[in-house]
């Protein structure tokens, strides 16, 4: 740590000659934030993302054509799909692991890991993270956690299958479902390591933002990306330890006979010894992380979008301080709304009123953010690069998905749509699709910074438009099957003739899901192809204001040759009157006669 701190303050030109780098220190056990960002991107987003999305396509096939034989099931699921027909237990396992991978591995570790690591040092003007070593350990813990989660897919009785929320007693007792045996043990170990990885990363981000900003980079000159990453890290540090404690207590109940979450249970003809625990306690602990987690996923995406929308509108982000204030308000409120997942869990109805109140409050800063994005577009000169399309797409799905939150956050209305497909539609739009759009926007926008090459824009356009259409095609009809009364996590709805007329809607949804899946292959191809054969990038291809574009295209250890540039203005002087260009780098001094933008 002391070595790197000294590098950060080094004014000498020769800092990047300090280390002799071998293949292993450069590409594998690297402490360089840019390399670690790439590692997160490839493992967390591309690899885990591919698995998570592929799983969803498998269970979508089952939902559209229930209990039919598919060769893909035979190939990928083997004994769990006798003669190609999916087993109900493995359906639940697929749903569980899809949720776990997408929420934690792709949209938490993948998203924050990639962009916080890449952008925090580069946009605040630091040589590297505060601790390169902790950063490296954080990534390798994430690697270990991913490998354990993937290993759980090969356990004989199948991976964890109690839903990504792993409510006990289902997750605690192997007698209640096969997935709660070895699969659940591995799930818990994997997540415990994941939390450790996430904490190390978050602490590093917080310390770096507070301590290593370059001269002139005051907190209110930070780009909104950094504000979002910074606040996200704080929420993570506050809430992830609670998930860890829940996981540890669950491990105790499972393996050492304690009764934290279990009481009065009778399974397979046997009265179990557990007395006095409560599953509701687990729900409280889980959602104390689980709800802030939504914002851990979403805030970085919103930060990325703020930056990309401003750059490509050639306009300052509208209401910078209101944007910062709403990030802070969302972060605070996110820690006091968890009970809205538990309106009908058996907790005191009075608490339901309290959580309804806090939950609907969170809609206010969210609305402010949406309005500010829209106003940023007003009278802009919009450059429709693929990153810009995904950012506007995010605002659109954020509004559509967010609005139905007004229904779900109301304890009364939650009664009849709780745990139905309405919920699935809501959170996929507002956090799943929106955060993925933010992620894609970020990849298209910072690809030149990551790999020194440009992604193909035409493939980017194809990727966006097909994804945008299929996202609505999948999730819009889903609200209706939820309001028709169909509970989620049903292996098939053929057991209820009452739901027979929903079968056609399920087919429509699956067709759009397959289309969306195919569109992601275009992205994957574009990514890999551009990495190796893409056009060489200019230093500042999007004519952006932020500091990362003052660093050379080739990655060097320490980011800038020579002194770190100083910052003289905020990040959003786009199209400022009196300037020759429609952008002014943050590192450009205020000229004679120019007034610093009041924001």
């Amino acid at each position, binding site marked *: 740590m002391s070595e790197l701190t000294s590098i950060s303050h080094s004014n000498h030109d020769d800092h990047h000659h300090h280390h002799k780098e071998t293949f292993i220190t450069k590409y594998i056990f690297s402490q360089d934030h840019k390399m670690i960002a790439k590692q997160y991107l490839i493992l967390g987003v591309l690899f885990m993302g591919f698995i998570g999305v592929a799983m969803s396509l498998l269970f979508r096939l089952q939902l559209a054509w229930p209990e*039919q034989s*598919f*060769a893909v099931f035979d190939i990928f699921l083997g004994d769990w799909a006798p003669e190609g027909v999916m087993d*109900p237990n493995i359906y*639940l396992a697929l749903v569980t692991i899809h949720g776990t991978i997408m929420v934690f591995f792709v949209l938490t570790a993948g998203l924050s890991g990639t962009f916080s690591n890449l952008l925090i040092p580069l946009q605040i003007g630091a040589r590297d993270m505060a601790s390169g070593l902790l950063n490296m350990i954080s990534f390798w813990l994430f690697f270990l956690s991913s490998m354990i989660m993937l290993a759980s897919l090969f356990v004989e009785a199948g991976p964890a299958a109690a839903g990504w929320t792993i*409510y006990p*007693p*289902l997750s605690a007792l192997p007698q209640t479902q096969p997935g709660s045996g070895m699969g659940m043990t591995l799930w818990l170990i994997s997540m415990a390591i994941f939390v450790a990885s996430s904490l190390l990363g978050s602490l590093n981000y917080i310390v770096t933002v507070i301590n290593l900003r370059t001269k002139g980079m005051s907190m209110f000159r930070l780009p909104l990306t950094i504000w979002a990453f910074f606040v996200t890290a704080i929420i993570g540090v506050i809430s992830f330890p609670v998930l860890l404690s829940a996981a540890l207590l669950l491990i105790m109940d499972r393996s050492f006979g304690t009764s934290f979450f279990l009481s009065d*249970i009778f*399974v397979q*003809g046997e*009265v179990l010894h557990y007395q006095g625990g409560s599953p*509701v306690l687990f729900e409280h602990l889980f959602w104390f992380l689980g709800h802030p987690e939504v914002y851990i996923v979403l805030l970085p995406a919103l930060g990325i979008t703020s930056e990309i929308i401003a750059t490509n509108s*050639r*306009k300052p982000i509208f*209401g910078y301080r*209101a944007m910062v204030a709403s990030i802070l308000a969302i972060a605070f409120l996110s820690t006091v709304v968890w009970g809205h997942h538990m309106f*009908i*869990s*058996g907790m005191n109805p009075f608490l*339901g009123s309290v959580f309804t109140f806090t939950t*609907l*409050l969170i809609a206010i800063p969210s*609305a402010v953010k949406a309005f500010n994005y829209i106003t940023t577009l*007003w*009278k802009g000169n919009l450059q*429709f690069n693929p990153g810009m*399309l995904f950012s*506007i797409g995010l605002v659109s799905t954020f509004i559509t998905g967010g*609005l139905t939150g*007004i*229904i779900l956050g*109301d304890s009364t*209305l939650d*009664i*009849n749509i709780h*745990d139905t497909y309405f919920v699935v539609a809501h959170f996929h739009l507002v956090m799943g699709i929106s955060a993925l759009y933010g992620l894609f926007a970020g990849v298209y926008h910072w690809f030149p910074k990551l790999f020194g090459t*440009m992604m*193909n*824009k*035409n*493939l980017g356009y194809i990727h966006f438009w097909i994804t*945008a259409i299929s996202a609505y095609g999948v999730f*819009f*009809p889903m609200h*209706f099957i939820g309001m*028709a*009364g169909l*509970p989620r996590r049903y292996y*098939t709805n053929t057991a209820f*003739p*009452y739901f*027979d*007329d929903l079968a056609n*809607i399920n087919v429509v949804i699956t067709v759009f899901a*397959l289309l969306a899946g195919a569109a992601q*292959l275009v992205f994957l191809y574009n990514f890999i192809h551009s990495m190796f054969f893409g056009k060489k990038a200019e230093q500042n291809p999007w004519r952006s204001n932020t500091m990362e574009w003052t660093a050379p295209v080739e990655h060097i250890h320490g980011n800038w040759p020579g002194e770190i540039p100083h910052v003289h203005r905020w990040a*959003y002087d786009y*199209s*400022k009157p009196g300037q020759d260009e429609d952008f002014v780098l943050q590192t450009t001094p205020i000229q004679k006669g120019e007034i610093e933008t009041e924001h």
Partner: protein
Amino acid sequence: MTLLLTLAILILTGVAFWQISKIFELSQMGRKKDDSQIATEKDNDLNGKLMFAFLVFIYAVTIYSFWSYSKVLLPESASAHGPAYDTLLWISFAIILFAQTITQAVLHVFAYKYRGINNRKAYFYTHNNTLEFVWTIIPAIIFFVLIIYGMVTWGNIMNIEEDEDALVIELYAQQWNWKARYGGEDNVLGDANVRFLNDFDGRNSVGIDSSDPNGMDDIVVTQEFHLPVDRKVIFKFRSQDVLHSAYMPHFRAQMNCVPGMITEFSFTPTITTADMRMNSDVVDKVNRINKIRYENSKELTANGEEALEPYQFDYLLLCAKICGASHYNMQMKIVVESEKDYEKWLSQQKTFSEIIQ
């Protein structure tokens, strides 16, 4: 067959993408070489117009969904608190649809209208405190009203007074079925615990404590349970193994069943099963379902399998909390009928003391 079809679709889509990208590449060749991969004026124009088209698409999907899928939604509520629930739902929906229509329009129209043109300078506009105050305060007022309205409704629904006249029923969940227990003559449920489940060679199916005299006249039923119309019912929920959720969508009612504790919900059924079967929405739905079942039966009988039985409407109790392999098939029929029919049905059931004899 569907497999082949799916594979064919996937392969064809793949080929289509490959071809489209080829066409894009070829179309670039003749022109002045611009491979900077940064949006040009032409790209801005095309994508700006597509943004407008996308707004039309969102509206079309919304209108189509409401027009075509509204008919699958739940029919008129069959409980006393249901109309209040439905009113709040549709008021919230009206607000949401209004906000959605306006904001999506503004977003996409701006995206279309301000699509980039070379050499045009954007308007430098950093903030406007009045504007921001206005659009903080307007949602705040709307949400405040919704919160108050919601809280009052919630308070009414969840306020379970132990009223003398109310019928007390226990819904008992286990992997993967439901049982219902009535208090019998005294309308009082006897004490129960999972410890007693193995008493009387397993005939004590919900674990009634045989030393509690209140339990001797209790009645436990499976498959279906009956409710008298227009009488308040207080439900007590128990589970013997994992979390379940007792979901009765037609009555706008749901509550989790938690091992180790007793949870409660209460409603008054207002429409008998027989009357609900006459409801025009239900009649339409049943006809639609039977048409689908008839079509599916043709395929089945062609393969030498049994045809599907025609469907008749019944109120349902479902499980809405993931609970293992047969979560998808954990159901019980609810029959709402006149007090007289209900009494008659109940008198035909065996009491606990009769069962354990």
